[in-house]
């Protein structure tokens, strides 16, 4: 299947459909840095199916494709990465102009920790134990971007999603017919299974971490390293609210609090950070699991944000990463809505 993808990248570059290919590659020491390939000879370094996620693809794309540029890019990434790019485009952090997104039936990713320890098997949706917790409950494992590679129910085949994906395939003289029945069957079965797993996972979270006490327990072990924020494609601020000087209390407030309650926890704001982060970005969370994988304290941050995201998005009938034209709920003013939450 790697060959099939490499072949498409090659043909895209040779035919001029794309001028550059953005893809993970095989780097030194078993790493997978993103590269922007222009010379077809470099394509043999491409590794579109790394077993881990080191840098979220949308972050890689946003690192250079902030505003419109000349030339066309074929970006090869996982569904959650392409969906994160959709979210970033809504806030002008990435341009979708001149970018084709090529995704695949995502096999999932293994935790970076197990990968580095050599303690992993190649990701396989059929064997969820090896996958990262959010991959195990991922319901968006296929059908993202402009086109994707269908791996199941027969030999690998490219499938168009959007008009420009269809055009790309047609230009390269490739089939764009109907989805094959075996693939549809595979997708539906996995989807059922994943929905079930997600439901169970969310129930677990809710049982374990209900209320302020539950949240305090969940984030109690947070070492405030902010890794979760750094690796998240959606957290793109230059300076996070929690690090702004004017969000700090003066000494007198801490002393006062300590005096009133007998003590004050320092540095404070752990809960505030996580609640604030959720309030800022959870509607755009694409459940990519980067945050959770990066947490040195094994806190299920990703599952928490993802769960909150699903609930809040449902209020607005919103789905992160679905459509660039779908406006961000918090940026849309509706004079008449949400009366059910009044009083």
């Amino acid at each position, binding site marked *: 299947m790697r060959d099939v993808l490499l072949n498409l990248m090659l043909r895209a570059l040779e035919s001029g459909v794309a001028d550059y290919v953005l893809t993970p590659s095989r780097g030194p020491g078993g790493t997978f840095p993103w590269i922007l390939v222009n010379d077809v000879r470099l394509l043999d370094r491409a590794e579109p199916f790394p077993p881990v996620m080191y840098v979220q693809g949308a972050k890689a794309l946003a690192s250079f494709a*902030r*505003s419109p540029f000349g030339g066309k890019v074929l970006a090869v990434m996982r569904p959650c990465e392409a969906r994160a790019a959709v979210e970033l485009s809504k*806030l*002008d*952090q990435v341009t979708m102009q001149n970018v084709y997104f090529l995704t695949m039936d995502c096999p999932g990713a293994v935790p970076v920790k197990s990968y580095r320890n050599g303690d992993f098997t190649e990701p396989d949706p059929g064997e969820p134990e090896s996958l990262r917790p959010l991959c195990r409950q991922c319901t968006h494992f296929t059908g993202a971007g402009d086109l994707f590679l269908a791996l199941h129910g027969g030999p690998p085949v490219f499938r168009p999603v959007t008009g420009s994906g269809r055009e790309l395939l047609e230009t390269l003289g490739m089939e764009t017919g109907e989805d094959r029945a075996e693939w549809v069957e595979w997708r539906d079965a996995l989807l059922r299974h994943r929905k079930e797993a997600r439901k169970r996972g969310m129930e677990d979270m809710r049982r374990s971490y209900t209320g302020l006490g539950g949240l305090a327990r969940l984030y109690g072990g947070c070492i405030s390293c902010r890794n979760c924020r750094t690796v998240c494609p959606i957290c*793109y*601020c*230059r*300076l996070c*609210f929690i690090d*702004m000087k*004017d*969000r700090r*209390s003066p000494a007198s*407030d801490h002393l*006062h609090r300590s005096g*009133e309650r007998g003590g004050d926890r320092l540095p404070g704001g752990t809960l505030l950070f996580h609640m604030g982060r959720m309030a*800022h970005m959870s509607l755009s969370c694409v459940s990519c699991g980067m945050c959770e994988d990066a947490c040195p304290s094994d806190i299920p941050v990703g599952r928490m944000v993802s769960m909150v995201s699903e609930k809040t998005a449902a209020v607005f009938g919103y789905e992160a990463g679905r459509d660039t034209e779908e406006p961000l709920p*918090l*940026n849309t*003013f509706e004079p008449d809505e949400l009366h059910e939450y009044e009083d």
Partner: protein
Amino acid sequence: MTVGKRIGVFVCACGPNIADVLDIERVAGEIGKLDGVILSETFGLLCSPDGRKHLVSRIRGNDLHRVVIAACSPRDHETTFMKVCEEADLNPFMMEMVNIREHVAWVTPDRDAATEKAVRLVRGAVRRTMRHEPLEKMKIVCNPDTVVIGGGLAGMTTAILLAEAGRQVTLIEKSDSPGGFLSGDRRVAEPARTVSSGKKGIKMLLNTQPEEIVGFFGNFVLSAGNMEIKAGAVVLATGCIATENGGFAPAEDFGRLAELLRLPLDDEGFPEREHASLSPLATPIEGVYVTGCAGGPCFPEEAVARSEAVAGAILSSLVPGRELETEPRTSVISETLCRGCKTCLEVCTYGAISFDAEKLVCGVNGVLCRGCGNCAAACPSGAIRSRHFTPDQLRYQVEGLLR
């Protein structure tokens, strides 16, 4: 400029309005114990001439740097007390009002609860004023000129009336000749000659359509082509058209014009009015008027009458030499923090924000900004500060309130 921290607190009895419900002596007493509070006292009616005189002498006599006034709604008397500060040579932005009438006395019947609530609110305000900084108002002279959009009978009549009263008018017409709907009719022949003559202070721009309109009453800037037209008032005289089902609709490009002005429209697409019967020709935007069929279908006689009313309204409100104070409580965008997402651009109803395509950041035009704070609330990256409503000031206030 660093300002000292001597704070004075004045609690108003508001006749019986406040004093009957809560114990204002206790409020003043509690607040008097706070750090930095030099004096904390009550008074019968602070907004009365006596009250104002009293305030001025107390501020001066005690060399106060910051003042908290616990009284009624700022809607009623903020400007009153700001003036008092100015009289006492205190920057008016060093004053903070606490609404212990509407927010406490009128809604909290229990005496103890009301008193406690007032103490907390005033404590928040005391802490807030500690973080206040003096802000300076700028004065700009308002522009007495008018721009009229649409060169039909109504537009021409308005322009001629204003010009006859000695005002400069720019008349913008999208086609290549004036006349509009009545073109060729003898009723527009004379006005068309007048506006085309180039005399009398009317400048006519043919084949022209506005591309951008920013600003506010007394200070509009309209761009068309590569021209910038400055005016104090804008008159919309763009006419209307008959629809297929026998009704009427505004001229085709009126929607676009309304968008440039951020003018709210009714269901039929005509502009909403400030007040349907009192001022049927003034729109909700101060300084923007409609005349002729742009405000709904009418006969030529009525169009002329409407234009007379509009010209009259402009002549009486837009007096040459009148000064406008700019709002110093504006917002500022930090170039270092801005991610250029343009969210603020969309929410600013005053067109005060623009995007710098080179630096990929947004910036606020301080003269156009009215300090509504929309942008600061909407910025997902915390890059915008509203002066006088900084996070620092707000958190000080909230912490003071919660203590």
